[in-house]
């Protein structure tokens, strides 16, 4: 007799930052969002945001995480609160036996990241860090490398620029104004989805976005970053300068297997690109080279009166959300790894942490990843 695959009931544990993670999971027919939940003690604006998302979904909002996990027969927790609470919510869900999909970053403190990896290992639940590893261009690159088209890769370079603004430009405000408050700025940025750094603790672009290009590199080559040298600056936005975090960084990556890599990353202002930013990969192998535009395939759309902020090049044919959810479902079914599990996420976290340390010290820094920690 034909048996339909199990559907996974999902709790959205906070939608304070990105509801796109929950929406992305829900694209897959095996996942069903059944409740939005959060802790009772969060701020009123947080409850309002959660309630709004629950209303959109047509599901209850329960301001009590443990009760929601227990009462709604939940299989999966989708975690996207402020960054400081990522690990806490993921750990509580895992301890309750729920599989976890988490928004980036993994953590803001190494001790929390340690605790999360330990908990995932102990509980045996599946963990997926939401990422972009299944974008069409990345899939094609992975296929080419796997088929040996370029031979054994020995160098990889990634540019990852978001052509977005973040409040006033650096130096734009009159002297004497108080520093911009990071948390307040991030809360206000929710309206256009540029609140990836939501949290009380300021985070630079290495912490916020580097998981994407570093995720590409890991998923394409399977290498581990062993040592980094990095430079960074707050070059564009006053809120980054006021809070002493970087909006532009470059990182030299020395990786396992003798692979050399580099990363250029930044939130570089809307004026810098007409379609959201230049994102590229160059992979050199001993038999060839791949030069990849991550935004392909796309379609150019131009018309009279077009809003300045509307991308001229639109991405098409992306199944990233579906494929991530499919990968997660398969991992739950089989007990196998996800494309970005807790240990891989930890290694990326450790790489970013080492890069920031290198920026401070001006010296290369060894990366202490999940296997060494």
């Amino acid at each position, binding site marked *: 007799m034909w048996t339909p695959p199990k559907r996974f009931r999902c709790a959205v544990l906070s939608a304070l930052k990105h509801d796109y993670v929950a929406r992305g999971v829900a694209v897959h027919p095996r996942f069903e969002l059944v409740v939005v939940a959060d802790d009772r003690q969060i701020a009123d604006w947080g409850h309002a945001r959660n309630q709004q998302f629950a209303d959109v979904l047509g599901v209850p909002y329960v301001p009590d995480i443990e009760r929601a996990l227990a009462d709604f027969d939940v299989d999966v927790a989708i975690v996207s609160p402020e960054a400081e609470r990522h690990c806490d919510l993921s750990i509580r869900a895992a301890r309750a036996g729920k599989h976890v999909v988490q928004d980036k970053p993994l953590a803001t403190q190494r001790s929390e990241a340690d605790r999360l990896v330990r908990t995932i290992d102990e509980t045996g639940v599946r963990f997926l860090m939401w990422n972009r590893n299944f974008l069409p261009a990345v899939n094609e690159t992975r296929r080419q490398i796997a088929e040996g088209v370029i*031979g*054994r890769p*020995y*160098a990889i*370079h990634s*540019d990852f*620029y978001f*052509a977005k603004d973040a409040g006033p*430009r*650096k130096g734009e405000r009159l002297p004497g104004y108080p520093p911009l408050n990071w948390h307040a700025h991030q809360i206000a940025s929710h309206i256009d989805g540029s609140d990836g750094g939501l949290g009380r603790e300021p985070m630079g672009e290495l912490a916020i976005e580097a998981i994407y290009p570093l995720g590409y590199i890991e998923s394409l080559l399977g290498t581990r970053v062993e040592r980094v*040298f990095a*430079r*960074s*600056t*707050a*070059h*564009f936005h006053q809120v980054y300068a006021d809070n002493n975090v970087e909006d*532009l960084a*470059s990182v*030299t990556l*020395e990786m396992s297997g*003798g*692979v*050399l890599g*580099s990363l*250029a990353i*930044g939130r*570089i*202002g809307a*004026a*810098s*690109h007409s379609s959201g930013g*230049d994102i*590229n990969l*160059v992979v*050199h192998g*001993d*038999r*060839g*080279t791949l*030069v990849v*535009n991550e935004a392909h395939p796309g379609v150019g759309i131009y018309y009279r009166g077009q809003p300045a902020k509307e991308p001229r090049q639109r991405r098409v044919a992306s199944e990233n959300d579906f494929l991530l959810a499919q990968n997660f479902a398969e991992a739950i079914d089989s007990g196998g790894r996800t494309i970005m599990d807790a240990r891989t996420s930890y290694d990326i976290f450790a790489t970013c942490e080492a890069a920031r340390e290198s920026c401070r010290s*001006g*010296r*290369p820094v060894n990366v202490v990843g999940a296997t060494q920690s």
Partner: protein
Amino acid sequence: MLRIAVIGAGAQETQNAGSRLRGALLEACGAGSAGEPLQTAQAVAFVSREAADPDAVARALSARQHVLLATVIGSPPQQLDRLSQLASEQGVLLTITRPDRALPSRRLIRQQIENGKLGDIGLVRICRGEPASKIDSSSPRLPSALISDIDLAIWLVGRAPETAYAVQRNGQQAEQRCIQVHLGFSGGGMALVTHTSVWPSQDAHQSVSVIAAGGAAYSDGHQNRQLLFSNGSASAPIADEGPVLTALLSDFVDQVQSGGSCASHDPSWRQLAIVVAAVEQSIASGDAVPVECP
């Protein structure tokens, strides 16, 4: 008419450049040439690394010929200092420049920077994949193209770096090499310059990006390629940016004719030599090296 002996370029290339220049007559001469064209020239242009023999440059300067040294510098700073001094004594122009600066794409980017359209430079990113056949695997020196790219990065940022970190990794073949140079500039600017030997293709790839406070410039080999479909497969030919020699010589002719003296020449070659030394030191030591430019 300024008579210029061109050393290090082929006859056809020289003829092509000559047909585009006003106020100058060009004659191609072989390296080590001592023939009539070289002796009667008012100026000598050394346009390849191989041709830029310091003794030959010194001979030309001593003969009171203006000199264009349009090549990646392979000489130590002291040697260039001596040549500069000689030019000064002879009252002739010694112009040292790098060919890549004359590429139309690089000039356009530089022009936008100078016009203030891009604002303060935050990052210069140069990625070059060069045919492995161009790599001299027996030489411990940095590849010429990498030195040229380091120069380009410094030229675009507009000041010397304060720190350099560089790493080299070798592939399975001796010619397979990836060198990454990471430069830090005062005020937070940075440059990532990567040179990789592409194997086994004869093809090449290059991209230059400038990320600045008010905008960005992308000169990307990826975007600049065409698609060619032939015999069931696709390739991506690139149209080159034209006769660089013309632009180099045109600037030089202007300098000579405007009465430029050796004192006015661009001193950045000295910075470049210091930076290259720091890069080589970083590769050897595995650590970041401070760059101390005067």
